[in-house]
C-alpha cells in the first residue's frame, strides 16, 4: 500500500521551519513481526535533521512497534532502518544509544526503586562519567520539578513527573534523535501542556524528535510533519498543518464528526 501524500509535489518538509532538509532517519519498506504476527507491513518514514515528526494512529496501528524497530528493541525482518547514513536494521539497542538514538519508552518505565538522580545517571550510562553531573544539571534546568525531587524514589513521583523523568533520562545520552512514545499517556491536561512545551524546547535546542501520540491534535500542534498509521501501514503523510485540516484525520483522530 502506498501512502497518500497531501502536499502536492515532493513529500517532505521543504520550507518547514526548523527543518534543514537532510535525512537523519529513514525507514525503508520496514516489515516487523512479533513471532507470526505481521505488525509493520512495509512502513516508509523519513525524519529530517531538526524536525519534530509525529506518528499518529489508533491502537494497534503499529506506532510503538515502529519506535521499537527504530531503537533496536525489535529488528525488521525485511526492509532497512538507516540512521545518519548507516544501516542500523540489525544493531542492538544499547549500541544505538551510543550512536545517538534516545528512547523514552511507552508507559515511562522509570526505575521505580532508584532515586530521580540515579535514574538520570542511568540515562547517561553510555556517556563519560565525568560529564554526567553536568548533564544532570542541564536536565534539571529543563525540568525544575525533577530538581525538587532529586533524592526521591522514582516510583513515588506523580505521573507527570515520571514522564518528565523518562524524557530527561532519555536526554541524558545526548541523543541526536529522541524517540518519545505516548508522552501524554495518563497525564492531566495541564501537565500535557507542560510536557509538550518542553518537547518543543528540546527540539528548539537542536534535537530531532520522532513522537508517537494518540493525542493527535496536540502532537500535530508541535510537529512539523506527521504520518498516519493504520494496521501496520502508512496511510497518509504530510505537513502537520495540513494533516490538522485533513478531513479523514479530523474524523478519525481529532474527534470531529
Amino acid at each position, binding site marked *: 500500500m502506498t501512502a497518500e501524500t497531501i502536499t502536492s509535489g515532493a513529500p517532505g518538509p521543504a520550507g518547514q521551519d526548523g527543518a534543514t532538509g537532510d535525512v537523519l532517519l529513514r525507514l525503508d519498506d520496514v516489515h516487523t513481526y512479533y513471532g507470526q504476527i505481521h505488525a509493520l507491513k512495509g512502513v516508509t518514514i523519513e525524519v529530517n535533521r531538526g524536525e519534530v515528526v509525529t506518528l499518529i494512529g489508533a491502537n494497534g496501528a503499529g506506532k510503538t512497534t515502529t519506535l521499537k524497530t527504530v531503537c533496536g528493541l525489535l529488528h525488521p525482518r525485511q526492509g532497512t532502518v538507516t540512521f545518519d547514513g548507516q544501516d542500523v536494521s540489525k544493531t542492538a539497542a544499547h549500541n544505538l544509544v551510543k550512536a545517538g538514538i534516545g528512547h523514552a519508552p511507552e508507559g515511562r518505565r522509570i526505575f521505580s526503586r532508584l532515586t530521580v538522580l*540515579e535514574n538520570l545517571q*542511568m540515562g547517561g550510562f553510555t556517556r563519560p562519567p565525568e560529564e554526567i553531573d553536568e548533564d544532570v544539571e542541564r536536565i534539571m534546568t529543563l525540568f525544575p520539578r525533577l530538581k525538587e525531587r532529586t533524592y526521591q524514589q522514582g516510583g513515588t513521583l*506523580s505521573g507527570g513527573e515520571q514522564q518528565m523523568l523518562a524524557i530527561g533520562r532519555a536526554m541524558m545520552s545526548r541523543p541526536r534523535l529522541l524517540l518519545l512514545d505516548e508522552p501524554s499517556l495518563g497525564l492531566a491536561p495541564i501537565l500535557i501542556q507542560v510536557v509538550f512545551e518542553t518537547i518543543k524546547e528540546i527540539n528548539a535546542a537542536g534535537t530531532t524528535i520522532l513522537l508517537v501520540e494518540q493525542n493527535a491534535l496536540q502532537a500535530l500542534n508541535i510537529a512539523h510533519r506527521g504520518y498516519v498509521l493504520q494496521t501496520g501501514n502508512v496511510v497518509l503523510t504530510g505537513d502537520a498543518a495540513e494533516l490538522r485540516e485533513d478531513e479523514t484525520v479530523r474524523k478519525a483522530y481529532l474527534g470531529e464528526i
Partner: protein
Amino acid sequence: MTGRVKGRTSLSRATLREFVDVHRSTSILLGMALVGVLLPLIALVPPFNIFQNQSVWVSGFSNAGVFVLLALGLNIVVGLAGLLDLGYAAFFAIGAYAYAYGASPFSGQHFPFIVLLVVGALVAATFGVLLGAPTLRLRGDYLAIVTLGFGEIVPIVFLNADKYTNGTNGIGGVYKPDIPFVEFTLLNPWPFYVLMLVLVTIVMILIYRLTESRIGRAWMAIREDELAAASNGLNTVTTKLMAFALGASTAGFAGAFNASSLTSVDPGQFLSTVSFTILAMVVLGGMGNIWGVALGAFVIYTVQIVFLKQLNTFFEGLPFHVPVLSDVNFVQYQFLLYGLALVLMMLFRPEGLFPSQRRKQELHAADAADTESSAKATMEEAL
C-alpha cells in the same frame, strides 16, 4: 536527663553514620576486625560456653564463614541483579573440586593455596559464563528452572565420573592451606578462623565497591526494568553475565577454601539443599545489603549446626521423657524450620532481618504512595 542522653546517642550515631559513609572500605575492615575479636570471646560467655568449648566454636565460625562467602556471592546474582539462581551450590562444588585436583594425592599435584583459591574462583566463573551465556536470555522463571537443573547435574556428574572424581567417596586427603609461617592442623582451628576472616573481609570490600560502582547500578537497573535498561544503552546480556560470573567466582572461592579446611570433597557436600540453604540465608538476611546477608548466613549456619544439635542433647539429657520433643531429631527438621522462617518472614518482614535501606523503602513505598495519592485526590476534590 533522658533527653540529654538521647541527644548524645543520636549525635554519636550521626557521626558514626557519617564515618561509615565516607570511609566505606575502612569501616568494613574495622567492622570485621571487631567481629573477629568478639566472636571467640562470646564463645567463653554463658550460655554459649555450656554448649561446647571455645575451639569447637571457633572451628564452627570458620565453617560459617564459608556460608557467609556463599551468601555474599549469591546476593550479587539474586539480590542485586534480580536473577533467581537455584543451583548455586554447583559453583561451590566446581571450586572445591578444582582445589582438590590442584592439591591432593589423588591428582599428585600440590600447587600453592593462594594460587588455587584464585584458580577455583576462575574455573567457577568460567562455568558461570558457560551456563549463563545461553540461559540469561531467558526470563525469570525459566532461568530458575535451568539453574535448578544445573545444580542437580553437577554433583551427579562428579558422582558418576568415577575415574576422574573417585565417585561417592570423593577425593580425600586434600592438602590443607600452606601459608608461610602458619601451620594449619585439623586440631587447631585458629589459623583457619583468621584466614577465613581475612577472606571474608576481602570479598566484602570487593563486592561493596562493585555495588557502589557503575556496574552495581546497572545491575539494579536490570532488576528494575530490563527494557528500560536496554533503552538507556546498557548491554543487558553482558551485564547479567557479569553478575552471574562474579557470583559463581565467589562460590568457587568459597569451595576452594572449604575443600582445604575439610581436606576432602565428595558429591554429597553439594546437593541442592545447599543451594536452598544459601538462598534462604540471602532472603532472611535481607537482600541487597552485604552486612545483612553476611549476618543472615552466619546466624542461620550457627543455629543449624549448634543450636539444633544442642536441642537434641538437651532433651536427651533430661532425667524425664518429654513426649514428642525427646523423640525428634531437630537437625532433620532444619528445612521445615527454614520453610517456616521464610513464610513468616514474607508475611511480617519481607525486606529481611537486616534490609538495605533501599529495599526497606521500596517495600514500604507502596503504602506511602497510596497515602500520598489519596491525599492528593482529597485535595483535588476540595478544590
